[in-house]
């Protein structure tokens, strides 16, 4: 029994940042990298299934990205993942989330997992489409925004509780293998133990390139993508007023503004 967990190393912004000269992205010097928060929950869900299972369950994490992605993969290994795979070729640069789904599908075809978890979305690009794209390329069933899961390894069915608008939940029975996109709060992700982190530092990370997957340069990268970034910029800010004066004056002005908005003046 094998669970494949797709993870992404996401970029977060420093307070003050600069946009690259080509205006397509933020200057990399101003980006801080970490494991996508949703993926932390996906991994935890896989680990919980592994630890509760009577039979052997292998948890394999996979990520598409350059060398720096190894840091996030090692974090997953430190938390107990059995294997880590990094997929990268320079031709993959500029791939959109749909194309990343295609690459991950090629990995899944080789790994033959019984279940695939991905985060609902990544905190940097927020497309919420990689997991769905992956299921589409595999032609597997999927359930999105999964906030609860009842699944026994080896079973051909799982019941996923999906989070809907307005605080509603929906229980969905889904045939396995399937792709589930996992929502925050489904579990409480663990901290990696210090020993786990040190051991993970020495563990090998399998590296897979385009040719290993049977894909060609035409299948990946910016040219193969359905969406391309044309410009990244900071939109003009809306109106804001700094309330000056003594603290009492500021409080009085604020109360006046609130009353005005409430139609009490």
């Amino acid at each position: 029994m094998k669970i494949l967990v797709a993870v992404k190393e996401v970029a977060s912004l420093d307070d003050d940042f600069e946009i690259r000269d080509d205006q397509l992205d933020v200057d990399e010097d101003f980006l801080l990298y970490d494991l996508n928060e949703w993926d932390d929950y996906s991994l935890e869900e896989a680990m919980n299934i592994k630890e509760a299972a009577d039979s052997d369950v292998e948890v394999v994490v996979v990520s598409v990205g350059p060398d720096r992605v190894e840091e996030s993969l090692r974090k997953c290994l430190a938390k107990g993942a059995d294997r880590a795979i990094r997929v990268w070729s320079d031709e993959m640069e500029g791939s959109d989330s749909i194309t990343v789904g295609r690459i991950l599908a090629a990995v899944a075809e080789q790994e033959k997992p019984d279940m695939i978890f991905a985060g609902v979305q990544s905190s940097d690009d927020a497309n919420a489409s990689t997991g769905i794209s992956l299921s589409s390329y595999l032609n597997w069933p999927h359930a999105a925004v999964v906030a609860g899961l009842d699944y026994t390894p080896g079973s051909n069915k799982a019941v996923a509780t999906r989070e809907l608008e307005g605080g509603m939940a929906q229980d969905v029975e889904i045939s396995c293998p399937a792709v589930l996109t996992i929502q925050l709060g489904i579990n409480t992700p663990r901290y990696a133990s210090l020993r786990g982190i040190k051991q993970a530092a020495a563990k090998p990370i399998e590296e897979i390139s385009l040719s290993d997957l049977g894909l060609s340069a035409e299948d990946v990268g910016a040219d193969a993508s359905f969406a391309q970034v044309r410009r990244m910029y900071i939109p003009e800010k809306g109106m804001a007023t700094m309330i000056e004066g003594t603290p009492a004056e500021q409080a009085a002005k604020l109360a006046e503004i609130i009353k005005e908005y409430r139609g009490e003046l």
Partner: protein
Amino acid sequence: MSLLMKMQTQLNDSIPGSAAELISVALDSGDIYSAAAVYGLADFHDKKLLAELLTAKRRDVLKLARWQHTPAEVLALFADVEDEAVRLRIDKNPATQTQTLSNLYRDEADISFITLIAKHANTSAEVLWQILHSSTATDLVRAVVKNPNTDAETLALVAEKFADQFDAELASHPATSADLLMRLYARGNEFVQAAVVAHKECPATLFTLAAKQESSLILRHLATNLHIDKRLTSRLALDKNYSVRRAAASHKNLPAWVLEQLVRDDSEYVRRVVAAREDLTAEMMNCLIADTDHWVRQWVALNSKLSDSQLYSLSQDEHKEVRRAVARNPKTNSALLSQLANDQEVWVRAAVANQPNTPASTLIILADMDDIDVLGGVAYNPKTPQKVLQRLSYSISADVRRAVILNNMAIRQTLLPLLDDPYYLNRMMLIQSRALSADDKWTLYDDPDPAVRFSLFTWFSRQYQQ
């Protein structure tokens, strides 16, 4: 090769015997956080090597220039880097020291950067004076006037140069002179006058003038001034407006006969402030114990002059916050604490667990409960037996384990397993522990978390500096 692997490969576990060895370890590791921690300790030659490491990558410089723990000497080093983005971070970093800010100002032409320097808490009065002379831009002048380091002379100049434009800020500034406050009161609006009469330097002549005003805003601020006399405090404490009475109710000058009236004040807001006073008589406290407002009862329940019977009476209160206040009261006896340890509300039991007077026998019972707040209190309590602390050091909750680390009575054997704590903040806190030896702490030299490595190398730097 990752930094962690590099450190594990290159270093051994033996503790550095000198400052030079510590610096050498930091240099060999290639770790910018260890290097930043030892930079202040290094001699000229090593400083040069450390500087090369710290400034090798722009990305690292940006990261450290923004980090609030970066030592001031490292920020001073970065101030020489010709990079606007780095300068912006140093101007904003609260750890940047006075001399660095002074140097940055000397070479600065951009008004937005000068405004950041004017806002910085470490900018000297001298630089602020120079800034004021360099520009009349409103934001910049406001930043100077709001900076607590600005001196009376500079503030007087602002009042003279800009008419009443910054009177509100001037009236609130702690360095504003009595003379200027007089002028501000004379020309200011109600808000400025209110700020003036609350000022610690406000001249007594203004108290008399302000007391004649009808404005409850001015009277309320006047009532908060610690320098007003007993007669004025009493008058304000009996004012028709409850907000003025509330402001006066906490004044240290309040005579007992006024306090007796305020205990029965119509406004619960006034009674709450009265209930928080320590100088209440037994009669006053009895009156407040019977108050209909639970906040009043909660405040009085914390009073250290309550008798055993009064505390017992409050411990039977229907409101959990009142019972919790009894559990927090330093005078509550062990018998009553043991009784409150069985309270149905977790919040009350947690207060008992945190209370230093709770007997060990009660703490042992509380240690078997499931609630994290209760277990955290037991883990932090100095009376908790060592065996219980040892058990709690393996709690699944990082908060409970951290409470053991923060317990001053936790011995070395209890703390040692926590050096492997999965939560980085807990490992970082162990570095300050007096129970662990330097050898114990050095096991964290290759910790995967940069904040832990920085704290460790900083701790060792301080040992060698002594």
